[in-house]
């Protein structure tokens, strides 16, 4: 059975949902503002005869007509980075500012991390953490290619991350783009659900709770923490936010989602969640022709 069938009760338009999941994903690139403006990148694509259309909600995202992003001059120069449209959302929700200290707990391979750096005009510090050496090397390669100089890379278990090497006590903001069951990436990786088991969903949810808790603890009072996954399972989304609302000093903050979304669900199977999770966002593939996604914005209260 297709594991996605279990989410039918959550989606109004089942047919559109399942149909979208069968479609390949458009090829989207983000303009790396450290090295180029959208105008400059578009002019380079024009000179090379690469067709694109602008993504309406964000001037730095371009949908390419055909080929992948890796074989054009502006990509070679680090003006572009291949990044799924919906995955630009958590950094936008986080809204990092110049000169701040930001933690990216699960940074590799670095699309969101380098987006944070660009949003901060490559100032301040982004601490990009991951626990997998192979994935860290992809993060390092991408950061170098994009000219990022404000990134410090660490390899720790995010659940008990230590700031000790850095000589400061807390971050201004943190982003937890958690390891997940990746159900929402079905359009990119059609065999992603072959390995799906409910046990895995539950075990990864425990890790997610641990990392998100640590992110809240490591962020200053009044600071922002964004939690996101590319999966539909409420066990990995609302249940994780519900957990930290109960165990950590934080609250859900509503944010204007630039993509069409649906509110977080307050009940799933036998469980009910804190009503505040309604202010988090579920994004289904058919709503904006993207991958599936979940995003919650939290404020640290003490």
């Amino acid at each position: 059975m297709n594991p996605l069938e279990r989410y039918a009760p959550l989606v109004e338009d089942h047919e559109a949902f399942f149909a979208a999941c069968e479609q390949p994903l458009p090829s989207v690139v983000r303009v790396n503002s450290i090295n180029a403006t959208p105008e400059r990148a578009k002019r380079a694509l024009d000179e090379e005869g690469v067709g694109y259309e602008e993504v309406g909600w964000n001037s730095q995202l371009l949908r390419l007509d055909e080929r992948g992003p890796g074989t054009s001059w502006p990509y070679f120069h680090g003006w572009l980075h291949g990044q799924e449209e919906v995955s630009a959302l958590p950094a936008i929700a986080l809204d990092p500012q110049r000169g701040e200290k930001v933690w990216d707990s699960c940074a590799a391979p670095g699309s969101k991390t380098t987006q944070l750096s660009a949003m901060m005009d490559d100032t301040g510090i982004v601490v990009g953490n991951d626990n997998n050496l192979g994935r860290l090397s992809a993060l390092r390669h991408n950061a170098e290619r994009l000219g990022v100089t404000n990134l410090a890379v660490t390899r720790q278990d995010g659940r008990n991350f230590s700031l000790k090497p850095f000589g400061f006590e807390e971050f201004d903001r943190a982003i937890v783009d958690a390891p997940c069951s990746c159900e929402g990436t079905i359009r990119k990786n059609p065999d992603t659900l072959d390995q799906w088991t409910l046990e895995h969903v539950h075990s990864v949810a425990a890790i997610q709770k641990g990392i998100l808790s640590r992110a809240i603890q490591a962020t200053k009072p009044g600071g922002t923490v964004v939690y996101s996954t590319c999966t539909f399972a409420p066990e990995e989304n609302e249940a994780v936010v519900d957990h930290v609302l109960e165990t950590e000093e934080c609250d859900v903050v509503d944010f204007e989602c630039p993509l069409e979304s649906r509110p977080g669900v307050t009940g799933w199977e036998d469980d009910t969640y804190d009503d505040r999770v309604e202010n988090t966002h579920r994004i289904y593939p058919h709503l904006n022709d993207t991958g599936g996604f979940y995003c919650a914005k939290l404020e640290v209260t003490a």
Partner: protein
Amino acid sequence: MSNPSKDNDLVSNVGQRFGRLPATPADREVEGRASREEVVDFFDDRFGIEPAVFEDFTFWEKGKGKIWIFAADVPSPIRIEGLGMTVLRTRQEHWKPTHSAVQRFGHHATKNVVKLSAEEAAQFAQGEDQEVEWDGDWGYLIAAHELAGDRVPVGVGLYLYDELRSTVPKGNQESLTVL
């Protein structure tokens, strides 16, 4: 603090961590480590990149002679996986700027920039060596081409005996359109 004037007072470099470069050679505490002043002077002398470009950055060494540039500052030494971006290879006779350094800062250069034609740029991006016209210094040059109305660095070239060797790293090499 040890007296840095005598070489035998210097501690040896530890490869697995980042150490901040000393401000000047006189502040040196780690044997053979380049100073910030020397690094900034190198980019100024070789490529005419103004020292002001690097004012807000710190410089670090990890591994033997690998220099990194970081937008902020942290305690030194620091044992982490990465700190900013690699910029320069020192501890060899001719210092070599990295591909990423030239992509990020090369547009500030005012000398030792070799302008490539569309065909030459495509060859260079593929990592291929070629004969080019150049009557300036031998050694490391910034290879650049014209794109979107600007002169844009393609990478670091090593110019020797009428030949420009592309040093674009394997992972960055690409077969691209002749514009």
